């Protein structure tokens, strides 16, 4: 049996357990183990993706118990793709994190790495598991480590984290309650098995309740408008390295869980025609796109602006999922990948600015373009990609979403996507103008330069990655994503 599916989260879990022990011996060992763990996990994910493309999906029975009795882990196109995204962004942010954590919270160095590893293990677990209850356990592992990580930073972080904990535990509880309804209706927890048993009980009230509870719970975790209220404070007050990891990954993995459950457990036509869940997600996504963009324009704090921009970008992903046609879903999945790279890059830039100048008010960024040329070059590329200017990656995912909207014949969505690109341009060009054309007070940034190499390289690689992903998008779509969305092409039954 191929062990790759279980190796991805287990490597991360083990490194999380060894980090506190190693931290007693020598503090720096914690960082080394964390980096080794996440890099190994990246190799396993890449090997998994390669195997899935060449030889088909991998199914792994935990402890040798075949489903539906045992827990099953599965790597198919979708989960191998997501695992690779998460571990590659995770590796880059981890390289960056060392200097940033040493500056911001030096006394918590070792526990920070243990928690970061637990967070990544939880996210990878959500991705590889094919069991509904196991997904809940990993969701809570990821959330619990996120609550702790967010409270470490700023003074106001604790209250923001507490509010997120309240909403997060409601979300988790809704999800597990929904799973309970599904279990008592079908008698199984294995995703593929539930999918087989469901059609017989499609119209029962218990299944309807399950659908509503599960999607509300995951929507909260994904921060889909109007369930995004926890997000801005949390992204703003967390330490830079933490928001650099949570902002690009956490909400995207929840979005992945929604895609996984609507593709694997419920049939797409059930969620669209019988119980209109996907249209609701699409409209909420469209509302989130506009709301997030407008709120982002109103912010003066750079990190808060990025947080609201995340609300808007999550709206794109929701819109793509909600369109429930192949083009829309390709757009959503491509946007998960692109946004993970863009947002990681932007938050790392925000962290670098804080590292060198201690500022995050956009109005105080004047003249930084000359002082931090490489950091700002990476920022420019990501900003242009967020706006959706070709050859940057963001253009292509928006293009697929547009095609999906046209395919659905919904012109409101098409207009929303185009209009939001303009709004995005407004808030990013405002920053770019400050950075490059703003009148600088020479005295303020006397000793400011690009951050040290360990922080600069991940930022530049992510920035370059945005361009590379843009150029390679046709390969990603034809090799991976078209296989993933194949079930949507089947005639509606």
């Amino acid at each position, binding site marked *: 049996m191929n062990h790759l599916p279980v190796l991805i989260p287990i490597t991360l879990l083990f490194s999380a357990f060894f980090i506190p022990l190693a931290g007693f011996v020598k503090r720096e060992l914690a960082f080394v183990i964390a980096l080794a763990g996440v890099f190994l996990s990246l190799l396993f994910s890449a090997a998994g993706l390669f195997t899935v493309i060449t030889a088909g999906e991998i199914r792994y029975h935990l402890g040798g118990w075949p489903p539906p009795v045992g827990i099953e882990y599965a790597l198919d196109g979708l989960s191998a793709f997501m695992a690779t995204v998460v571990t590659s962004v995770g590796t880059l942010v981890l390289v960056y994190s060392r200097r940033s954590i040493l500056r911001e919270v030096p006394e918590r160095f070792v526990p920070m790495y243990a928690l970061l590893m637990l967070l990544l293990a939880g996210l990878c677990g959500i991705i590889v598991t094919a069991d509904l209850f196991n997904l809940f356990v990993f969701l809570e592992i990821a959330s619990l480590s996120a609550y702790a990580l967010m409270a470490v930073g700023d003074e106001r972080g604790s209250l923001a984290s*507490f509010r997120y904990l309240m909403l997060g535990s409601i979300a988790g509880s809704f999800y597990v309650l929904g799973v309970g309804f599904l279990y008592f209706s079908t008698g199984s927890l294995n995703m593929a098995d539930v999918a087989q048993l469901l059609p017989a009980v499609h119209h029962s009230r218990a299944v309807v309740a399950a659908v509503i509870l599960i999607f509300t719970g995951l929507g909260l975790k994904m921060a889909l408008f109007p369930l995004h209220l926890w997000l801005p404070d949390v992204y703003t007050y967390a330490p830079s390295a933490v928001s650099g990891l949570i902002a690009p990954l956490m909400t995207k993995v929840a979005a992945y869980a929604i895609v996984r459950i609507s593709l694997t457990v419920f049939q797409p036509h059930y969620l669209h025609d019988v119980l209109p869940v996907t249209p609701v997600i699409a409209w909420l996504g469209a509302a989130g796109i506009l709301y997030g963009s407008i709120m982002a324009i109103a912010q003066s704090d750079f990190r808060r602006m990025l947080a609201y921009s995340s609300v808007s970008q999550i709206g794109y992903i929701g819109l793509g999922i909600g369109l429930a046609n192949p083009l829309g879903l390709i757009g959503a999945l491509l946007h998960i990948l692109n946004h993970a790279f863009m947002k990681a890059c932007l938050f790392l830039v925000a962290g670098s600015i804080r590292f060198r100048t201690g500022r995050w008010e956009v109005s105080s960024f004047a003249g930084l373009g000359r002082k931090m040329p490489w950091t700002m070059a990476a920022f420019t590329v990501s900003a242009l990609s967020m706006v959706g200017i070709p050859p940057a990656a963001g253009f292509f995912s928006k293009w697929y979403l547009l095609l999906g909207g046209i395919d659905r014949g919904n012109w409101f969505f098409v207009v929303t996507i185009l209009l939001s690109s303009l709004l995005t341009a407004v808030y990013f060009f405002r920053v770019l103008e400050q950075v490059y054309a703003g009148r600088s007070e020479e005295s303020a940034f006397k000793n400011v330069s690009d951050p040290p190499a360990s922080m600069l390289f991940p930022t530049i690689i992510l920035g370059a990655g945005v361009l590379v992903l843009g150029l390679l998008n046709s390969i990603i779509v034809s090799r991976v994503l078209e296989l993933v969305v194949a079930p949507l092409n089947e005639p509606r039954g």
Partner: protein
Amino acid sequence: MMRFAMNYYDLMTAALLVIGLYGMVGKRNLLKKVIGMNIFQTAIFLFFIQGGTKPGATVPVWDPRIASEAAGYINPLPHVLILTAIVVSVATTGVALALLITIYRRYGSLEEATILERMRKSS
């Protein structure tokens, strides 16, 4: 296993869910919010545990009189699931209380309005 009729347990579950949700959303004291969260999660435990019961069945320990007749034992799987969920709930409560301690040390209160006011003054 199709059962969404109103019985005693479902009513209790629904009542506890509503009370817990009210505590988390409606109460202004952070500690009361944590208590609400615990009530909310307990409702879910009750829902799962009662789902495993069958009329006339006994505990799922091997009994020679029932032998391998599955209908004679209650379903142990929901209980095992809820054991995991209880661990999750304990961990969540622990993290929540730890956060409350840091909040209390900084702002000297657990009343949301007072904290927000002191936060505004300090910034």
